[in-house]
């Protein structure tokens, strides 16, 4: 197998073992990402418990349908990423590049909706911390928007990073660097993108729905 020998680093016995090691390393990284977001979710949970009525009112003032549409957009981009991995496994790396390109476009749609939301918040004074001068009053209102911007902002940064990773891996795939034999970067980029989707699946109900 020529393809498998060229991609194996000298300290691995076989391509299969190298792939397992890479996958496990990625999962360890994803676990740290989960814990990074969990710190923010825990803060959100505490303040939502302490200031339930204000948090519920502030949550209702968000545009729920934008959050729902963004969920559908991200879920669909996850499908195209999964299909992209499927394509390269079938020996069609160019199809992978196209599917990853579609995912990047969907991520841009997601960020576009976030831009609409953020500019609305800036206009109505729904800002974090001491800059808050929005409509919802009472203790905890500015805390809601502090946590809102922290959580959606950190997630947004992850969307941007994921877009870059998908663009790079998609380009390399188009250039024929991956195929049915070797496609570990395609798989790991996909894992990262699915995690970004997974986190949004929890952000959406926590911030918009309850």
């Amino acid at each position, binding site marked *: 197998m020529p393809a498998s020998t060229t991609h194996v680093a000298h300290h691995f016995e076989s391509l299969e073992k190298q792939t397992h090691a890479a996958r496990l390393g990625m999962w360890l990284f994803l676990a740290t990402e*989960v814990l990074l977001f*969990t710190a923010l979710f825990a803060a959100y*949970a505490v303040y939502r418990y302490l200031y339930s009525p204000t948090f519920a009112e502030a949550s209702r003032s968000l545009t729920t349908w934008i959050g729902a549409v963004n969920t559908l957009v991200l879920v669909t981009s996850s499908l195209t990423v999964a299909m992209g991995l499927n394509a390269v*496994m079938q020996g069609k790396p160019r199809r992978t590049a196209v599917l990853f390109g579609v995912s990047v476009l969907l991520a841009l749609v997601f960020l576009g909706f976030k831009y609409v939301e953020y500019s609305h918040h800036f206009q109505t004074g729904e800002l974090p911390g001491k800059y808050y001068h929005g409509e919802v009053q009472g203790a905890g209102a500015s805390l809601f928007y502090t946590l809102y911007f922290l959580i959606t902002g950190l997630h947004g940064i992850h969307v941007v990073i994921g877009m870059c990773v998908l663009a790079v891996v998609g380009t390399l795939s188009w250039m024929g660097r991956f195929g049915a034999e070797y496609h570990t970067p395609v798989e790991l980029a996909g894992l990262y993108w*699915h995690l970004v989707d997974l986190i949004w699946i929890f952000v959406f109900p926590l911030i918009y729905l309850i």
Partner: protein
Amino acid sequence: MAETDSESHFEEERLHHSHAGRYVWVWAALMILTGLTYWLSRFHFPGGWAVTVALVIASAKGTLVALFFMHLWDQRGANRLVFVTSLVFVALLVGLTIADNATRFPLANPPGSLGGWPASSMPQGGMPPAGEAR
């Protein structure tokens, strides 16, 4: 790392078998569940039920993504163990922090002393008034 025959065979099969149909079904389920949770959020459930319903649906969606899009369904134990361990710490971090805040009460020192209730607010021979608890 011990490699069993069945695992190698399984990995081999993954290389050639298309998962496209499975991905589409999972995607359809995720779309339907997103619509469902959006629709259900319009009803005002009493108490903590709105949170419960929203989080149960989110967990179902998250499980679908982790198992099928992220391939935990057909990968070996180590990756599953790492992910499940991270979820255990999520439960500990969120659960214990909430439990801490939910069970706080003013220190039970004698009324008027440091850490106790002001002497005047203590009702005759009993617990402090509930309204003072926060």
